[in-house]
Structure formats: structure tokens, C-alpha cells
């Protein structure tokens, strides 16, 4: 089976966000594979181990993203591709990313493409479905279970807490939801092996893409931090009095009940 995983390099969830000069400061920040993409990588490895084939992890970004690709290779992916846009694109949005990824994938005949259902930085959750649509294949988002028999695919999908049991078929793009699996940590032999696995780097010139055709449709004009929430009041006294006071405050002061 020809399996591709779309991954994104993101800030570690532990990081505080610092904005200066209208931009998010990246200096000194830790970067990780987007956590939802880790589920996608793990699932891809499990599908390959059960059905054979090859797992290729694919990302768009700069040289820095190689580290996350190596981590995916150390987890067990077979190959990695970095579409390096550092020199070609200043601005990129979900339209841009999907166009580039779909263009790269269009002659690769993937049976299965996996991605995270959302990236924890931009949080748009668009790129997976957009890529599927551009490739003309079906997609299922926020999956928590995947079973493949031949070309038939059985999926459980999380829909706002409910579960949809779905039948569909390959080729298919799925996006991973938490609960799909427990992503493995790269083992030491895995890390050693990953150094020798192929990591291909391509640029827009290598693809059939004119920069103007993938120009972002949206523009971020400002980034800012939310007002810092002040600590409020810790109630005092007898517990039952505190509870009564709280209910009173919620009704009369906060007026939320």
C-alpha cells in the first residue's frame, strides 16, 4: 500500500506565545510534530505493518522541518519529503499549502493519505480535506478507528462526542483525532536507522507550480495576545457558605445563571 502522511512542524504545546513586532517570536522555542499528525504517522505505520507497502511523510516548510521528518522516520516511516518553500513564498495560507501538496501527490497514486485533523498552531483544519478534494478522492475527518480490508475501509469518526460508524473505500484521505492510537516514541535503533532513510527535498520549481497560482487568498494583518486574565476571588469561610456565596455571585454579579 502506498501511504502518505501530511505533517506539520509546530510549536511545542508547552510554549508560551510571545508576540513582538507583530510576529510570533520563534527564537529559542521548542518545535515538535503537530500532535495530531503523530497519530496519523502511528496509524500509517500500523497500516503498513499489517498490509505491507511504504509510508512517506510529507511536509511543507524550511530546512528546520527536517528535524520533525527525521523524527517521523525514527518512529518507522520509510521515506520523507520536504517541499522547501523558504526561498519562493513569503506568505502562505491553507489554499497555498493544499495546492502545493496536491500538486506533489497527483502523480504518486497514494492509496491512503493520513493527516492530523487540525494543527495546534493555525488551527484551521482545512488542508487535509482540501488536498483530498483537489486529488478527487474521498476524505473522512476526525477518525478514531481505521480498519482496512482490501479496498474496503471501516472507520469510526468522532462527531462532537458522538461516534459515526462509516464504510468507504480506498483511495482515501483521513484526518486523525485523539484516541486513534498511542503514538510510539522513536527507539534508539529507530533513530539510528532514520539517519540513513531517504529524505528528499523539492522546491516549487521541481513541481508544476507557478508561485502566482498558489498565492494566498487570505492575509493576516495583526497578531496579538489576549488580555491577561486577572485572578479573581477565592471565597472564604465555611464551605456551605462559600457555595451559597458562589451561586449568589454567579446570579447577581456575573449574571451567567
Amino acid at each position, binding site marked *: 500500500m502506498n501511504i502518505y502522511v501530511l505533517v506539520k512542524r509546530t*510549536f511545542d*504545546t*508547552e510554549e*508560551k*506565545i510571545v508576540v513582538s513586532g507583530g510576529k510570533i517570536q520563534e527564537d529559542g522555542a521548542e518545535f515538535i510534530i503537530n*500532535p495530531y499528525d503523530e497519530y496519523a504517522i502511528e496509524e500509517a505505520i500500523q497500516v503498513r505493518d499489517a498490509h505491507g507497502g511504504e509510508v512517506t511523510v510529507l511536509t511543507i516548510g524550511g530546512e528546520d522541518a527536517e528535524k520533525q521528518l527525521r523524527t517521523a522516520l525514527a518512529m518507522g516511516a520509510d521515506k520523507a519529503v520536504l517541499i522547501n518553500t523558504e526561498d519562493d513564498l513569503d506568505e502562505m*495560507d*491553507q*489554499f497555498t499549502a*493544499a495546492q502545493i501538496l496536491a500538486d506533489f501527490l497527483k502523480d504518486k497514486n497514494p492509496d491512503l493519505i493520513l493527516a492530523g485533523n487540525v494543527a*495546534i*498552531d493555525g*488551527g*484551521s*483544519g*482545512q488542508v487535509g*480535506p*482540501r488536498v483530498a*478534494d*483537489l486529488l478527487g478522492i*474521498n476524505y473522512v475527518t*476526525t477518525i*478514531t478507528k481505521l480498519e482496512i480490508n482490501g479496498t474496503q475501509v471501516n472507520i469510526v469518526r*468522532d*462527531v*462532537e462526542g*458522538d*461516534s*459515526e*460508524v*462509516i*464504510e*468507504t473505500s480506498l483511495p482515501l484521505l483521513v484526518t486523525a483525532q*485523539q*484516541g486513534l492510537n498511542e503514538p510510539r516514541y522513536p527507539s534508539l535503533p529507530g533513530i539510528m536507522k532514520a539517519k540513513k532513510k531517504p529524505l528528499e527535498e523539492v522546491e516549487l520549481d521541481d513541481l508544476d507550480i507557478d508561485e502566482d497560482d498558489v498565492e*494566498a*487568498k*487570505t*492575509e*493576516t*494583518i*495583526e*497578531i496579538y*495576545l*489576549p488580555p491577561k*486574565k486577572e*485572578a*479573581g*476571588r*477565592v471565597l472564604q469561610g465555611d*464551605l456551605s457558605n*462559600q*457555595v451559597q456565596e*458562589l*451561586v449568589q455571585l*454567579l*446570579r447577581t454579579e*456575573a449574571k*451567567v*445563571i
Partner: protein
Amino acid sequence: MTKKVIVLGEVREGALRNVSFEAIAAAKKISGGGEIVAVLLGDAVQSLGTEMIHYGADRVVTVEHPHLKTYTSDGFSQAFMAVVEGENPDAVVFGHTALGKDLSPKVASKLQSGLISDVTGIEGEGEAAVFIRPIFSGKAFEKVKIKEGIVFVSIRPNNIEPLAHDDNRTGDVSSVSVEITNLRTVIKEVVRKSSEGVDLSEAKVVIAGGRGVKSVDGFGPLKELAQVLGGAVGASRGACDADYCDYSLQIGQTGKVVTPDLYIAAGISGAIQHLASMSNSKIIVAINKDPEANIFKVADYGIVGDLFEVIPMLTEEFKKIKAN
């Protein structure tokens, strides 16, 4: 220049979801005085059209088809695109719900447009409209505008106030017939896990439990309080990782982002990933045994105490109030 805006109304179990009315309010701002056309898709949605008009839509177009009884991206995109082709809108508004998240990228792809998703606020009107959305799960915000093409946004439930309901508003409710073919996804079954509560992302009140809940059964008192307040139960990653509850309840940077009117955090210490995803709630109440817990730093009101004592007492108090 005014804009013609299409709003996708969302129907669940025969009723319009509140986010549909919020989407009309968003459309109103984007339109700059232009026409607002609501679209309803389903197997029997015609009768819901008037309600969309009462909330500010000028006109309603429905597509009814047996294949639209349950949502599939193929079925709904075919129906929606048929309406779009007939209407030729300048802007489109969806709710950023499970359905909206799944469908909007496909529609944006077909429209070859940008899509500003998860919008929590709109500044300016018409041409000047700028959209506010959280990034890093609410650790920061960005203001975004569309550079070219259709203005397509999806709005987060509970953040944009619907327009006042007006019984006297009238408007045309028409239907379009669309051939729905080649559905590649078959939904065999829907297992309702959230049947006891209101949907977490749309709930006005969220009662969330953390490690302090200690067990699956420990969520019992939280569920009871949620029921009395008409709210939903959520959880921290700690509680999910410990198998006290399903991951679908998780609030956090990996998990759901919620902005209810009232957020009660019980036995949650307040990791940075959790705080990012709930600290934009209107009012936060923290209940924790540890007075040093981080959660108190963002709480409007705090009670230092055992959640298993405090939560049932709260439930009783609210029950008393309701009875009066």
C-alpha cells in the same frame, strides 16, 4: 459595495442549531447591507425556513433529498454548490461545527477560495470586515482578511450574538432540486455518547473534571450538575489519559477549545495547554483542594475544597433556585 451572503443553516434532529442564527448575524456584518440568503439542506427542512427569516435572513433556499438526511461531505457539497451556482454569492458563512469543519474546506476548494475558519469576532463591515480568530488554541489571536475572491468564513459557536428574533419578518422560502449522486461515504450507525448532555463546543455552561475526579464514577456528580444547569461535561487531558472519560470530552490544546458563559473547573490543576483552551470563557469557577493550583490564576471565583463535597452542594443550591 454591498455583498450578497449565503449562510448555511445547520439542522440537528429536526431543529436549527443556534450557530445558524449566529451565522446570520455574522453575514449581516459582512453584507454591508446586502442580501442574506440562508441555505438549508436535509430530507425535510422546508418548515425551518421561516425561523431563519425571523433571525434576519432575507430569503431561504432549501435542498431536500433523501440522501441529505444524514450529513456526508459528498452529498452536502453537491447540494450546496448547486445553490452557490444559482445564487453567485460574494460571501459564505458556515458554523465552525463538526459539520462545518468537515464541509467548509471542500467547498472552499471547489470555489478556489480562501477560508477563514474558527472566527470568534468580526471588526468593521462590508468591504472593511476583518475577522478575528484564535491561534495556538487561544494563546494568541490573529486578525485576518480575504485578499481576493469570495469571503468565506466559519464562525465558532457561542461567540457572535444572534440578531433579535423578529416574528414579523417575512421572506421567500424556495426550494431547489438537486441530483445527489456518488456518495462515497456510507454512515452505518451513529453511536450517541453525548446524549446525556449538550454539545460541548456549543454549551453555555461547561463543567470540567480533571485528575481530581479520580475515576469514571467520579464524573457522576459533574454530570448531575451539568444536567441541572443545562450544560455539558468536559475534561482535562489528565482525566482522559487516566481513562476516567472519553477523549471526546478533552478540553485543551489537543482537544476542544471552549468559550462558554460559565466554566466550572473541578479538580483541574490548570496546565498551560488546558488554560489556553478555556481561559476565554466568560466566567471561570475553580474548585480545587490545592490553593496553589494554576487554575486559580485565571478563575473569577475560586473555592478551595474537595470537589466531591462542593459539586453536590452546588447542585443542591441550583436545584433549589430552579424549584423557586
